[in-house]
């Protein structure tokens, strides 16, 4: 093979185009100019189809990772900024409700029962004569805690179990999938009535734990499917051929490529969990007064919707904004993690 070298005409430069030139260079009838022209036409070092956005030299020189790129992308995405501001605001409300309201949600005056909005009480009063604005502000803590932590819990547990089942397959997959089937088989409301009614203290964390225990199979199934799809891709085989261990395969290759459906399902589930908490409270097995939550207020207001719609609209509106903010955040993160959408 090295003998091939002397056969090359001297005029052809030995640079990155050499392998192209070998297709033509052996033809002695072609002049150097013509060879150069052909090389230019087929030169791959300057790809025309790649977008020619102006990138600085520093940008091209410093290597970046997917997560750095995703963060750069997110910072420029208005949807991410809007949802981020909303979520930060909601978290501040949940942690420091006193900053936004001077009255107490538990200071009620029955004589004002179901009165509409008035000056100083912009959201009106509920059946007990409590200030709806104060209850909406103070209810944020319970609702957001349940929603966020139940979603985090189900997503982490579901992704972990479903992901491991999908990655390793075999008996682990069989065991995890059957356990998930068992939990799937329990109707969530019946499960709530059975399990939560035997627990005397029903703090927020008990409700969160209950939702996580019954909610993880949904995420586990999504994660398992996504991981199985990603596991069969050639790039995973390629990494394995390089000698990559299971941890690297899972974290670098499979996880980033199976996150998208998990993020979508988890953000939609967040709203479901907040309303599930409301339903459980309505059935008397969720949070109990004096805990204030949007769920409790929404279920209480549903009965008197025709007489006093403001009692329903304000907590329900707060719930909608919260869910919307998280879904928008999930959408923005999912898009930022997909380089094809940039």
């Amino acid at each position, binding site marked *: *093979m*090295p*003998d*091939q*070298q002397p*056969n090359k005409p001297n005029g052809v430069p030995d640079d*990155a*185009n*050499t*392998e*192209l030139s*070998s*297709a033509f260079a*052996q*033809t*002695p009838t072609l002049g150097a100019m013509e060879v150069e022209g052909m090389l230019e036409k*087929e030169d*791959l*070092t*300057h*790809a025309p*189809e*790649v*977008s020619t956005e102006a990138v600085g030299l520093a*940008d*091209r*020189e*410093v*290597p*970046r*990772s*997917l997560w750095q*790129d995703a963060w750069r992308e997110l910072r420029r995405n208005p949807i991410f900024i809007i949802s981020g501001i909303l979520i930060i605001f909601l978290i501040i409300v949940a942690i420091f409700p006193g900053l936004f309201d001077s009255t107490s949600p538990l200071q009620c005056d029955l004589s004002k029962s179901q009165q509409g909005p008035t000056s100083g009480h912009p959201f009106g009063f509920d059946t007990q004569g409590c200030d709806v604005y104060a209850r909406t502000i103070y209810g944020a803590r319970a609702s957001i805690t349940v929603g966020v932590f139940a979603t985090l819990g189900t997503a982490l547990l579901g992704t972990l179990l479903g992901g491991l089942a999908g990655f390793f397959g075999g008996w682990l997959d069989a065991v995890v999938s059957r356990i998930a089937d068992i939990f799937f088989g329990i109707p969530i409301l019946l499960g709530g009535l059975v399990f939560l009614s035997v627990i005397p203290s029903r703090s927020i964390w008990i409700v969160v734990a209950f939702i996580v225990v019954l909610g993880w199979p949904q995420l586990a199934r999504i994660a398992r499917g996504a991981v199985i799809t990603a596991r069969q*891709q*050639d*790039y995973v*085989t*390629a*990494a*394995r*051929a*390089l*000698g*990559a261990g299971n941890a*690297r395969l899972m974290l*670098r*290759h499979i996880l*980033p*490529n199976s996150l998208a459906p998990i993020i979508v399902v988890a953000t939609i589930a967040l709203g479901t969990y907040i309303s599930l908490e409301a339903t459980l409270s309505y059935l008397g097995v969720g949070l109990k007064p004096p805990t204030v939550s949007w769920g409790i207020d929404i279920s209480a207001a549903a009965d008197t919707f025709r007489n006093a719609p403001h009692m329903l609209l304000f907590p329900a509106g707060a719930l909608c904004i919260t869910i919307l903010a998280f879904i928008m955040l999930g959408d923005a993160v999912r898009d930022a*993690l*997909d*380089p*094809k959408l*940039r």
Partner: protein
Amino acid sequence: MAEPTAPEVAIEAVMDKQVERGEPILQVRNLEKHFPLTQGILIKKQIGAVKAVDGVSFDLYQGETLGIVGESGCGKSTLAKVLMNLETATSGEVLYKGEDISKVSGRALKAIRRNIQMVFQDPYTSLNPRMTVGDIIGEPYEIHPEVAPKSDRRKAVQDLLDVVGLNPEYINRYPHQFSGGQRQRIGIARGLALKPEIIICDEPVSALDVSVQAQVINLLEKLQDEFNLSYMFIAHDLSIVRHISDRVGVMYLGKMVEIGSDEEIYEHPTHPYTQALLSAVPVPDPEGREGRERIILAGDIPSPANPPSGCRFRTRCFKAQEKCAIEEPLLAIPQVFSGQDTPAAHESACHFAEDVDIVGATNGEA
């Protein structure tokens, strides 16, 4: 591929001669890969096996290219996977410099992976869409940190991009921003990163446009010269295999049916299957085309779970006789040619081997 020019043919002739038969770098002995067929849900009972690779032996020498051809489903890709230790061999040996690598695992396997790398068929699925090109080509260094110290890695990655003919400034681009040919170059750069001695190319150009195929093939040849690589080149396309290979092996239904230098296989095929394959090669010259005979095989490739007795090719062979169903022909120099100094005297697994010049009418090149 383009019609060969006179110098190109001359070069091929030179290349053929200078293949040195020193110590083989890779020796494959009776390699078998059977995929079990099971029945039952709880208690799995094996009811048979798909014999994807069933007793394959060959040698790969330093700096040479061994082409492997055969139709779909004959076990070419499984052979590549077994050699890469991506599938464990059912039996047989893969000797890398005399050491059996088919049964190693853990750290020893990781060390061997540095020396044997792979280029994949489909450049659209073999690159992680969520990794930058710099990460993809740099990953081998993260897995084998001893190859390049951390401070040199970016430089090493950019050098590799340069070697395969891509702009070194592309490290922060993602695979979808490249064309098929460029992606395959990225895949080749990744395979080269660890400075392997052997690269197994599993149909590296069959997913590419014909115009791009030539560029990638030329790149592979250039890299072979530069780094003294040994290639095992698996492909469907007989003319590409002839162009790049020093020796060619023909596979049928999990077995090697004929193996020899490219001239021996292409000019003097002795196995009827090789002859049939070669007669299917399109000939760009109408005059040459008229003079030749097409061998059309009847039927489909039999199931590898239940291969025919005796010679596996007998069900579709135009020469099959009773002997073929009883006695399995071994891969050896056929008796009719043994002791003779003809190019037809190369290993061929046929009882009725016969030297037929199939592509001779086309001046030896497709």
